[in-house]
């Protein structure tokens, strides 16, 4: 089994298991069955980091960015509800 998982990740098989790894640095991030997002470097910022028109989201959402733990490649940027 081998297939892409978006732009900078891929799924591959090894030793009887399926893994998610970074295509830029080959860092193995997680088993496919795990939530790979939980194994990424995660940083949160005020919504306005994504632009001045995001002011309305302040207090409700934060901008969450996920990075490859191996090379720091940006994998995902999303507004998530502020906990």
């Amino acid at each position, binding site marked *: *089994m081998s*297939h*892409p998982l978006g732009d900078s990740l891929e799924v591959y098989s090894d030793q009887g298991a399926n893994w998610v790894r970074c295509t830029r640095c080959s860092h193995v991030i997680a088993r496919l069955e795990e939530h790979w997002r939980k194994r990424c470097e995660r940083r*949160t910022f005020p919504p306005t980091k994504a632009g001045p*028109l995001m002011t309305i989201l302040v207090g409700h959402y934060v901008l969450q960015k996920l990075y490859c733990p191996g090379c720091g490649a940006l994998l*995902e940027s999303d507004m998530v509800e502020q906990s």
Partner: protein
Amino acid sequence: MLIRNVDPITFEVLSHRLHQITREMGITLERTGGTVTTTQQHDYNASLYRPDGEIMAAGETYGHHVVCAGQAVKRILERFGKEEIYPDDIFLLNDPYLAAIHNPDVYIICPIHHENVLVGWSATFVHVSDIGAMTPGGDSPEATEIFQEGIRIPGIKLVERGKLRRDVFDTITHMTRQPEAVGLDLKCEIAANNVAKARLQAMYEQYGPELMNAISSEMIQYTETILRNRIREIPDGVWSERLTIEADGPCKLTLTLRKEGEQLVFDFTGTDKQVRKGINLPFHGTCGFCFGAVLYSLAYDLPKNHGVLRPMEVIAPKGTIVHVQYPGPISMSTTSSGFGVGFLASSVLMQMLATSEKWRHEIVAPQASHRNCRHSGVNQYGRYCPFINMAHGALDGNGARVDRDGVDSGGSYMSVPNVEWMELHYPLLYLFRRHATDSAGAGKFRGGAGVESAHMLHDAPEGKIRGVAYGVAGLRNSGHGMFGGNPGAPSVMVLLQNTNANSLVGANKSPVDLSEIGGEPNFLPYCNFELKQNDVLYMRVASGGGYGDPLERDPERVRGDVLTGLVSKAAAREIYGVVLNGEGCQVDLAATQAQRKKIREEELRGPQ
């Protein structure tokens, strides 16, 4: 061999000819329609069906209405039976609890006979200018039950054996606030269906029923076979997405897509219960929006027909926002939960395509729609009309793609009249309508910029007009980013009260900056409101989400966006890490490299 009974050349020619009939139906609607919603905004559908209601040719407009109009054909068949359906009959249906999505979208359905045998159906809808609901135009934010949302017709013969039933026609139009305009819209639908009937009958005359029946059956089989093959090539998996709509509190819509073999299962389990606000969607509407998402992502190049539906299953628990039970209100469903379902379905499909080497190049950052407004009142010529869907959603910025930016104000199916036309026909003055700076989601490829506008009253005899605020209310009602791309700016609708816009215009000034206009801002939820003298309505529609890391965007592209005003110099520096020097905004490559390194290092040092 995909095509079993028909030679491939005949198949191609005739399947395109069927598609052309749907296009000609659409052109007929545009040229004969009674309201701008049909003639300029293109809020309509035109499609062909097989005798049992299966989609023969979906046309080029709304995927969701294609499915629902097919449902309407089935309901007409059930209600009248073939023995009461005569050549040259035409039926009308707008009941959302049977087949339609909301009452103002009136389906006109026409059986098509060849030598007295039923060989197919045509169907259209237009959004008529009024349907007798508690709010002019149909979208009724204060309705708590379907009974407040206007005339609801489960299927009626509007034309019998070629003769318009004047009593029925007058009864329907007289229950609306604008009988003449609604009458014109119903007649334009009749005209479009007459065109479809003439063209399809001509094909039956020319080619005979045997070949024509084989063609329509083979077209569906062809689309289904290719689509199933495409789905099978993609790895199995499960993907999910959520959306919150604010309607007197958060209403959560949840979708999980399970892809197994050649089957796509769209499961809305977990979606909130229906509410006493017209954002609820009938189940056939939910199926229709999922159909549209599959059609536009995996089947856009195939004959558009029932074959797209066959590999799909939709699960939506009864009594939820996506499967409303009687008598829940639905009048705002299309532009709220409907577009919401369309977003969810697109998002999970894009996540699925991202796992396919072949299909990941087709990904478009998904769009969670926008806010919109409709006005009614007395215009500058002293005439009352439930007049205008502002339709600015037609100016949404589109999502970015794997290899290119989203289209600025690319919109979707609809169009929007120019500002001068609006001002000529309605008591409105636009202060501006333009691309909003820094609205597009940043990315290696950025989203399309959405439009912002501000309008006020001008020459309104009553000194006010009514407004209704609808669309997707909520903070995440815009484009979502993919693979590091930022989301687009939220869509907002703000009523600025007690502004100084009138005195500025009176002094021959053209205020183009909100800070000049002043006033007290009120962010509009789902509501009715009044636009009065000294008020300004500011609307910003959706902008596209970005694709990929903004720090990897070609600096020259960022420079180009700064020069055209789509991106501010500050955003170029802080979001894209591009340093521009001087009035010509020349890219300082060394400083840009250093700035990008600094941004990423600072991000990674930031709070976890």
